[in-house]
């Protein structure tokens, strides 16, 4: 009995000692090369984990490629936010208290950025999101260290609405949000524009977890020739389209960002507007596409903006190191502000406005043909 107590105590002691030993930083290495840590926040689990995993993969890819190119030793620490402000807050507090960490990529959702912005501001730490598109994030002034590589909803909402009004010319339409703020925000921007144009709008709402749309589809009237789906889950839109086919409804689907998913959402004749380009179609990205596909399989438009964001951070760190300075949070933040890339994975130059928005905000519109292929068309 007693012997067992002692043995167990020794085991516990050994374990805890070992734990302490390994956690102490190995200080000397930092001086020799550009060694530092950046964080990545995203919904790695939970309902939109596929989105977060894609973002994580591209962040990992960017770090690996940039480390090779710049001879830096940047390591990536991941934090799971589940697209939930509370989790994002916890993760951010952990990151901020990690003295080795100099900048963060993410978080994914606008509501999360809103929750963690003040924390990053207090720590003087830059964070770049590749998917938060709420306009107020950059205009409110509450998030001075926030940047994003995607354009905001104030660009997308009106652009899409006007395209629908002018090109598709519906008399009435159905617009369905998915109860997430990304979606409801866009809907609230678009509805007044439709109403001003004299279009009758049937506003509906289904949770992301719903996969049966037959009842909703039955509601589409012949006058409603357009269905707007600002959703994040492409598989749901695909099912929506199939339910339409099954019930012989002829309306055209107009989706946004999340629906960009060749291979998943392929209802012929549908439109998808996206904050990110399809990098499969950008010749300069061919090797990157091959690399990503080999390593992680197929992907959509959520990964590349995060790659771009991570690349911005990597380059900033490399620039600081090259200038002979230590990559501190302040130095990295300053370097990010000065970002001026002539080209990027997104097929366009990247530089930031004083508020942290990308200059020359741009969205991309795609039309799906009968083979399920996405074709970029002008607005």
């Amino acid at each position, binding site marked *: 009995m007693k012997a067992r107590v002692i043995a167990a105590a020794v085991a516990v002691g050994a*374990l805890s000692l*070992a*734990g302490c030993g*390994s956690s102490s930083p190995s200080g000397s290495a930092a001086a020799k090369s550009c060694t530092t840590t950046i964080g990545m926040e995203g919904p790695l689990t939970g309902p939109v984990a596929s989105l977060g995993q894609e973002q994580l993969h591209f962040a990992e890819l960017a770090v690996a490629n940039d480390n090779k190119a710049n001879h830096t030793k940047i390591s990536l620490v991941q934090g799971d936010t589940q697209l939930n402000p509370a989790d994002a807050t916890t993760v951010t507090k952990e990151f901020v*208290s990690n003295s080795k960490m100099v900048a963060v990529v993410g978080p994914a959702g606008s509501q999360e950025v809103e929750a963690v912005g003040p924390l990053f501001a207090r720590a003087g730490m830059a964070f770049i999101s590749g998917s938060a598109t709420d306009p107020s994030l950059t205009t409110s002034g509450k998030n001075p260290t926030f940047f994003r590589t995607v354009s905001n909803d104030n660009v997308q909402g009106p652009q899409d609405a006007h395209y629908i009004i002018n090109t598709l010319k519906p008399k009435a339409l159905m617009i369905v949000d998915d109860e997430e703020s990304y979606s409801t925000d866009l809907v609230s921007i678009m509805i007044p524009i439709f109403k001003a144009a004299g279009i009758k709008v049937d506003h509906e709402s289904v949770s992301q977890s719903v996969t049966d749309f037959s009842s909703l589809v039955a509601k589409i009237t012949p006058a409603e020739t357009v269905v707007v789906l600002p959703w994040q889950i492409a598989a749901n839109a695909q099912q929506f389209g199939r339910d339409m086919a099954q019930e012989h409804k002829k309306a055209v689907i107009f989706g946004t960002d999340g629906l960009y998913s060749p291979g998943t959402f392929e209802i012929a004749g549908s439109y998808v507007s996206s904050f990110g380009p399809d990098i499969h179609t950008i010749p300069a990205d061919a090797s990157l596409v091959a690399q990503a596909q080999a390593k992680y399989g197929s992907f959509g438009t959520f990964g590349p903006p995060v790659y771009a964001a991570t690349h911005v951070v990597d380059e900033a760190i490399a620039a600081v190191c090259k200038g002979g300075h230590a990559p501190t949070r302040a130095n990295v933040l300053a370097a990010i502000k000065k970002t001026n890339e002539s080209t990027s994975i997104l097929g366009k130059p990247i530089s930031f406005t004083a508020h942290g928005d990308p200059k020359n905000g741009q969205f991309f519109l795609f039309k799906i043909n009968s083979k399920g292929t996405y074709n970029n068309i002008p607005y």
Partner: protein
Amino acid sequence: MSQLATDEPAPVAPAGPQVGADEWVARQAQRREYLPSWLGGTERLVEKVGWWPRLGLAAAAGLVLPLLHVGQFQLQVGIDSLVLALLALGLNVTVGWAGLLDLGYVAFFGFGAYGFALVSSDQLSAQGVHWPAYFSIPVVVVATGLLGLLVGLPSRRLSGDYLAIITLFFGEAFYEITNTVASSKLGGEDGIVGIDPIRGFGVQLLSTEQYYYLMVIFVVGAMIVLRLLEFSRTGRSWRAIRDDPLAASAMTISVDKVKLMAFAFGAMVAGLAGTEFAAQQVSIAPTDFTTQYLIMIYACLILGGAGSIGGAVAGALVLNVVLDGILRNPTYTGYLFYGLIVIALLVKLRPWRRLALVAGSTIVFGYALHAIAAAISHSWVSGSLQSGGWIASALRGWVIVPASATGPGDWGFVLLICMLIALAQVHGRTRTLLLVPTIYLAAFTWETLLGTPTNASITRYIIIAVVLIVMMIARPQGLLGTRRVEVPT
């Protein structure tokens, strides 16, 4: 009856040992169940100290903690744990004492948070409503209590599982209302942002330390209040209706009223936790108050021991510190994983000979298997270990890690589950024999699948789930609870 009350209590000397069934039963029951071996020893030691001194020690430890150069993040984990502890304390009133299975409890927490946020932000009007905390907190807490009364009303007609169902749907309804139905007023999925800190009398609480201290005060205060209540007329009536509502009503207890009080009381504690949560978090959203979090609160209460004040708090602290403080760090997670295996073996496996046998065979088994795999194909063993530190060096050459680990890892996981189920079904020599490959498989699965950084957050949840299941089977009374009997009705 009158002559009874006038007499002084008759001094009753403890009777000497008597032989008979009564005595035997009494003695058996006196042997409380302790944790196995040395853990039980610690338990007995702690038990020697009285309840109030123990509370004093714990409170002092809580107050001293920030002075020990802990980081902001550690303090934040502390605050989160204390919020959970407060919630578990409230749940303990409704579930642990009164036995009313309230699965909508998290909505009271949400109601408190939303209530506080509405009167402490710009949500309601352009210039906002900004009540001072000494006014808003009591109002919100009382309002939450009233909501508790309202939700408790069905408990007068429904009990047990039916009550559980209806409260579960109340919780879902709360989420629906905040997220969708009343989204224009309550901010929908974005929730409410820009919530005032706790302020009043010219003081504002801003720093993490201040909130930490506030939470320590609230939790200790709640513990004191609940302890005083537990052994009062009200507390006894709660526990009486848990054990037998019918008998309670025959013993002059107004069961309906007592149930409603339990609901209201639990709700008030949750409401209080909600106000602190909102003030400290600055922004709240419907996703803060989901069934997932409810499961977490239940897990805390169950782990600590339903019905025990100290248990509720200890459960919350242990679980949340493990989850947020340890399991967010992959290296620590590895230590915890292998540490638990070692401790479980040390505690459960006896005699020593058998332990040595299992340990020895496991080591030999691993090296043999590794050698065979390496001989067949180098790519079978050329993957990199996930664990760092000394564990990695200990495991190298022992555990197989294929170059592409995902597929084998998945199958390893499935096989591991099957092995564990099988292990629970067999006994004696077969079990000992089966233990060796199971341990090896556990290490294999960890190094190829569970321990990988990509899966870190999923692994956290799997660990919560396993803790809940194993705890229920092995020690349903929780860490600090006492085993309860339930008479089937």
